[in-house]
């Protein structure tokens, strides 16, 4: 009896979680701008997986808010992204997952560091890269693990 109860409760929890994760966006929830950009999806929108809907809706909102210059820059970055080897893109996606679990303070600190890095002249950036390359594989791995091992500091509430 106890075992049955556990199975039933477990199933309910699993189904509940699945429903919670699969909550999609209805076409009517999209803004007019998003609908305009995603017009050719209007008939098939409801059949798209929820995570694809989310990416498309976010992408459409970002595209709508961009200036022509920003659009050109984003298209150039997209070209660069597509040109990366598949393994490198996968690694970046994994890092995005880890980064998403960091606390807002940690994200802010890393973004600030990156801002400083971007503002450095080529020579200084190269000096940093060279120094990083001089690390032993063990040291580099430890640095990567340093990020990976951080425990999430907030609930998973990402998009």
């Amino acid at each position, binding site marked *: 009896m106890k075992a049955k109860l556990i199975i039933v409760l477990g199933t309910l929890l699993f189904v509940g979680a699945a429903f919670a994760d699969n909550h999609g966006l209805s076409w009517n929830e999209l803004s007019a701008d998003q609908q*305009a*950009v*995603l*017009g*050719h*999806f209007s008939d098939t929108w409801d059949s798209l997986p929820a995570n*694809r809907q*989310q*990416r*498309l*809706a*976010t*992408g*459409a*909102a*970002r*595209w709508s808010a961009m200036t022509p210059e920003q659009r050109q820059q*984003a*298209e150039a*970055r*997209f070209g660069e*992204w597509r040109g990366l080897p598949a393994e*490198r893109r996968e690694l*970046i996606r994994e*890092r*995005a997952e880890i*980064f*998403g679990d960091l606390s807002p303070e940690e994200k802010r*600190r*890393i*973004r600030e*560091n*990156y801002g*400083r*890095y971007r503002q*450095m002249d080529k*020579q*200084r950036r190269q*000096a*940093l*890269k060279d*120094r*990083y390359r*001089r*690390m032993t594989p063990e*040291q*580099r791995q*430890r*640095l*990567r693990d*340093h*990020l990976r091992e951080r425990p999430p500091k907030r609930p998973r509430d*990402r*998009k």
Partner: protein
Amino acid sequence: MASPERHAVLLACGLCLCAAAAIAGEELPPDAEFLEYLGMWEETDEDWLLLDEITLVENMERSDPVPEGEESTETENES
């Protein structure tokens, strides 16, 4: 005008009209792959550039850029 010639002229006119409409018309919406790419990042699609360099950027907090000519001695005591 013979029928095949007439068809050719009509086709040419149609193509010209389509091209003119495309040039004069609004910008076509981006394709789905590009939109998904734009939407997959937390803040902006520039995020992937940060993530690509994140181990390096993370390292910056412990040791700011090496002044020119100076050799690095960092990371030996990392834990």
